[in-house]
């Protein structure tokens, strides 16, 4: 049991659970940052979101059962935080989905590989629920069951969102439906394929 009515000021009191919890939480920070980046796009607000989620997780540590999946738990906190902030800002300023998605495609590194840039743009064109399902399963390394828990929906729903997202993203990259002046779509796909082939021969 952490916390109590007595004042422990000045006393270095850490329960073993707190120490273990903190160690695990620190290891998850890079993943929380990456997930936040896919939701916010803009690196600064993504880090704000990741920090908020980290603090929420820390404050709620008593309700976490050590040994269960902390990564999925913290991702769920981060996602809830993101959507509750978004709802608040909708009420306040009628911020639309479009604005949020514009930030997703923000590229702060001009040297970033072109195909990654296009992948980001393609992702931004997907419905939010498909995008997050694909990112959790396809990049975050979560099982469908875990992704369903994080998103608060049925496993079957996640499966169908992921498969629709894959098909749509493929079509977008293939047809060059994304908004990019000049560059041809097949360039993006060729570059992606060349990379994948290189990677598969290395393995």
């Amino acid at each position, binding site marked *: 049991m952490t*916390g109590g009515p007595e004042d422990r000021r000045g006393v270095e009191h*850490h329960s073993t659970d707190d120490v273990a919890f903190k160690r695990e939480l620190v290891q998850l920070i890079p993943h929380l940052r990456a997930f936040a*980046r896919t939701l916010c796009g803009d690196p600064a607000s993504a*880090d704000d979101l990741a920090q908020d989620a*980290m603090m929420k997780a820390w404050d709620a540590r008593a309700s976490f059962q050590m040994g269960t999946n902390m990564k999925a738990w913290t991702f769920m906190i981060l996602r809830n935080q993101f959507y509750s902030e978004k709802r608040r800002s909708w009420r306040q300023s009628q911020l639309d989905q479009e604005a949020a998605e514009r930030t997703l495609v923000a590229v702060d590194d001009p040297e970033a590989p072109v195909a*990654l840039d296009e*992948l980001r743009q393609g992702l931004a064109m997907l419905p939010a629920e498909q995008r997050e399902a*694909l990112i959790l399963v*396809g990049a975050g390394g979560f099982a469908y069951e875990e992704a369903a828990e994080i998103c608060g929906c049925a496993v079957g729903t996640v499966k169908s969102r992921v498969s629709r997202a894959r098909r749509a993203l493929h079509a977008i990259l293939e047809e060059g439906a994304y908004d990019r002046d000049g560059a041809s779509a097949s360039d993006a796909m060729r570059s992606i394929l060349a990379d*994948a082939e290189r990677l598969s021969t290395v393995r």
Partner: protein
Amino acid sequence: MIEQRPIETRRRSSAAMDEARLRQQAIGVRLRQMFDEVVNEPVPEEFLEILRRADTRSSGNG
């Protein structure tokens, strides 16, 4: 010849399927790459600082 056509069609469609699968794999590789790019960034000191402060606060509050 008549018998060759279905085989030819099958071969073509299986090649197309292989290609589609390869492309999906390629997108998957890129997706992980995009995510891992951020995972591999050094964690800004601010994160650890916030956690340290919270730690002091919680042991202070009891």
